[in-house]
């Protein structure tokens, strides 16, 4: 009880330091700049923070932190915005948002999708910050229990849960997943340093990461699809007849549960170093679909399909601050950049952080709350404006999507070869769609394939080649059991579904 009152005096102090009008202004600038950068395909929160870092030189540390918070959340929301409006994930964690966000936009419900994304982000971010404040040290110990076998089984569970998304044919989904895994294997192997599947091309050494795959498979693929007139039911791409901005009561209820579930999943995925927002979003989507009463709506524009992943990736962003602050361990690209930024302002994250620089930390936590609120305050009024973007003639819209995608791919490393990779992936996506293969599992393979591989190989290194390591550790065994149950229920369902046909 005593510690709880302590926390509240501390956070009140933090708000006192962070909540000055000047700082609020910096926070707003951060949200706006972050959103602007996040909108560009390929430029996610990590890049946004490192690009905007020099702007904060010479600021008070707290002003800089509140701006970082704003940039972080702003960039994530910016990524979701383009995912919904033009099927172009602006950053890797908003890839999942395209699955239902874009179909919603096509139905003329872009405003609804944006609204549920913003509120989901707000709930996810705020809850994660609350947990960060209240129970960070205990949670860190929990995350340390996760070794390679636990990660392996968790990632495998995520793969199994989501493997059937967007597909009517299981074999085609599987094919797409394997294709994604194969694409992700290109490049230098982390465990041995061997260059794999690169055909001797140094351009392929750094591999095809999730960002390039997202731009190529979704943004370029979608543009080529529209360009070749595959969708032309009438001139307009987007049904503006039933264009409504708000959400119906029923949609509020549906979203509310999705926000909560997504938040919890996202937060726990976030505190595990190396897991992060993209995986959180995939898992939240998988759970939502599994427990939904209307699984058939997923992929066609289900509100939950936007609400859950968006809540999850923002909760994961907050969750990843737990190991960063409590142990000084950056668990994701974005937190690695945050670490550099914090160090520039004399904040040395680690177990002694709360003792050594209490004022700064509580100011930082208060900044995260404030940045979250600013995200809502700034972006909700803009929802109407953004959904009007779709009224732009589709020729101009999609030509700019291609231009921005190619520039986004280029700006990652400044190399022309990445733009070619993106183009080739776009053609691949078109070909797959042409033959009715789902695209989402390809991306799932790209995201989860390398993680599953690395953790599997790490596990066997640790056990010196003994496979029983997966069955003797309780957490890993638990996840594997869930996977077995999942597969079993899927098989039973398949059998029941085929029975009437055979009769």
């Amino acid at each position, binding site marked *: 009880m005593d510690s709880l009152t302590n926390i509240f005096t501390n956070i009140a102090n933090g708000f006192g330091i962070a909540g000055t009008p000047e700082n609020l202004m910096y926070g707003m600038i951060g949200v706006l700049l972050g959103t602007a950068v996040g909108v560009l395909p390929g430029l996610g929160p*990590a890049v946004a*923070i*490192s690009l905007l870092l020099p702007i904060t030189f*010479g600021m008070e540390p707290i002003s800089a932190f509140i701006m970082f918070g704003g940039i972080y959340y702003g960039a994530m929301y910016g990524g979701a915005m383009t995912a919904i409006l033009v099927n172009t994930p602006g950053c890797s964690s908003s890839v999942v948002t395209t699955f239902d966000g874009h179909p919603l936009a096509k139905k003329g419900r872009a405003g609804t999708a944006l609204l549920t994304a913003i509120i989901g982000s707000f709930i996810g971010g705020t809850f994660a910050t609350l947990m960060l404040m209240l129970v960070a040290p205990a949670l860190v110990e929990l995350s*340390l229990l996760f*070794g390679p076998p636990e990660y392996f089984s968790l990632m495998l569970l995520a793969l199994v849960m989501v493997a059937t998304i967007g597909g009517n044919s299981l074999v*085609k989904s599987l*094919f797409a997943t*394997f294709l994604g*895994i*194969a694409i992700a*294997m290109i490049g*230098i*192997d*982390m*465990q*041995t*340093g*061997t*260059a*794999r599947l690169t055909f001797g091309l*140094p351009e392929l*050494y750094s591999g095809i990461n999730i960002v390039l795959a997202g731009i190529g498979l979704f943004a370029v693929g979608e543009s*080529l699809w529209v*360009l070749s007139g595959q969708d032309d039911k009438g001139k307009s791409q987007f049904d503006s007849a039933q264009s409504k901005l708000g959400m119906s009561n029923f949609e509020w209820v549906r979203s509310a549960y999705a926000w909560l579930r997504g938040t919890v999943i996202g937060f726990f995925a976030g505190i595990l*170093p*190396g897991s992060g927002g993209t995986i959180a979003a995939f898992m939240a989507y998988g759970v939502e679909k599994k427990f939904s009463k209307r699984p058939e709506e997923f992929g066609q524009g289900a509100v939950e399909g936007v609400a859950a992943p968006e809540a999850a990736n923002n909760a994961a962003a907050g969750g990843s601050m737990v*190991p960063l602050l409590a*142990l000084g*361990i*950056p*668990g994701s690209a974005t937190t*690695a*950049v945050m670490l550099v930024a914090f160090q*520039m302002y*004399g904040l*040395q994250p*680690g*177990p*002694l952080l709360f003792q050594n620089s209490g004022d700064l930390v509580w100011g930082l936590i208060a900044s995260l709350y404030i940045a979250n609120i600013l995200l809502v305050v700034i972006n909700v009024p803009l929802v109407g404006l953004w959904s009007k973007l779709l009224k732009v*003639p589709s*020729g*101009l819209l999609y030509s*700019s999507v291609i*231009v921005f995608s*190619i*520039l986004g791919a*280029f*700006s990652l*490393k*400044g*190399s022309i070869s990445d*733009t*070619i990779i993106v*183009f080739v992936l776009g053609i691949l996506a078109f070909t797959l769609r042409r033959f009715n293969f789902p695209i989402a599992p390809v991306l799932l393979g790209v995201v989860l*394939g390398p993680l599953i*591989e690395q953790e599997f190989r790490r596990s066997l*290194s*640790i056990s*010196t080649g003994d496979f029983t390591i997966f069955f003797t550790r309780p957490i890993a065994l638990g996840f594997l059991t869930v996977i077995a149950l999942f597969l079993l229920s899927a098989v039973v369902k398949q059998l029941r579904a085929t029975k009437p046909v055979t009769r």
Partner: protein
Amino acid sequence: MHQLRNIIGEILIIPTNGKSMLNTLLLWLMFLPMISHAFSQKTSSNAWQPNYPLVITVPSNPGGGWDQLGRFLQRTIIEEKLAPVSIEVVNKGGAGGIIALADLVATFDGNPHKLMITGFGMTGATAMHNSEFNLQSTTPIAALTGEYQAIGVPYNSPYKTLADLMQAFKKDPEKIIWGGGSAGGADHLFVNLLADKLGINPKNINYVAYTGGGEATAALMGGQVVAGVSGYSEWGGVVDANRVRLLGISSPTRSVNPNIMTFTELGIDAVFQNWRAIVAAPNISAAQQQYLIALITKARNSSTWQDILKRNNWQDNFLVGEEFSQFIVSDSKQTQEIIEHGGLGSGGEGYAYIGPYFFPSIAGIGLFFCSLFLFIGELKNRKSLSNISQLDPAIKRLNKFYFSAATVAVYLLGLAYLGFIFVTPVFIPVISRILGSTSTKRDIIVGILLTTFITIVFEHFLNVIVP
């Protein structure tokens, strides 16, 4: 000299009326040797000054040691107001830095405004992947920092001293599971060096690679690995909080931390420094190199930089000129040796229990069986319904696809050889046309406006130079 430049300047901006366009061009070509001559003379007589922003390329993704060095250097130069132009930092990660190195050598040859952060990891990567270029292809500017490798174990580990750990490592190498950064990096190569000095067969090293030092530290604290290897400064807070005990350090003496034993004390000759430095593009003039060396020297001597060194626990490993060049040569040799003795690199597959081709094979087998299954299904379908005419409209559409894909391909070619500003205003109306746009005029205007807007935003606000 000044006059000559004025004259040339006037010629270049002479108002072009009618046919004089060609004349100007011819004049320009005539003066070309003179211009270049004038400029080279200028640089040798007066000191050279940069007239564009200086760009420091960080050859890794944001976060991590190289990124830190680049950004702290940028901050020092800005805060101490050392350069007449702005300083920008761009990240160009991938393949241990080879991508950025190739870019600096091949694309920015002779460009005095491009600098790159480099270090031990890059010599390792170039040696492992038989890279076309190496650090000797660049213009050396200065070595800046050095960091010794430190070995840590969980606080409650049974290994209490460095001697304990080394004895166990020698006796049963596979049982000591090392955790550190990715294969081929400083952490990995240091473990290889240790094994080499202890006479351990490199095939028996059990090294688990993590994406970054942070994840490896988490694995160590969770007891997943037996010992962790990382730069001394990166351990930081977890040591102070008694979560990790540091057993050994790769410095020659106990100068860094008197409480940590050195390998030299145990009679293991494993002095090793993960150095970081800054280099410039090849073939810049001597005056340009001098300017850059002077700039970095000023930055290094500033109190801001000394403060940064202290705060980050970095060693001041400052070297310029011939000394630095020789250091690069000798270091590359040592690295090459470690890699050869360890059987690492493009030739060897390393010693992981599951080799690098296991998962690609699984994916390949999976793809094969899925295609087989689909192919059989397709054959069955063909037999049952043989109305191919239904596919006709789709085939028509495919022509449109070929056309638009070709347009994008031409756009990419244009991007590579002509430049963004020229091809984009053409590309946008063409694509718009494909989608049935009727007002070409409007599309062209939008194309030009968008191109201008993107160019300004990317180049001035995002530090991305459009192709």
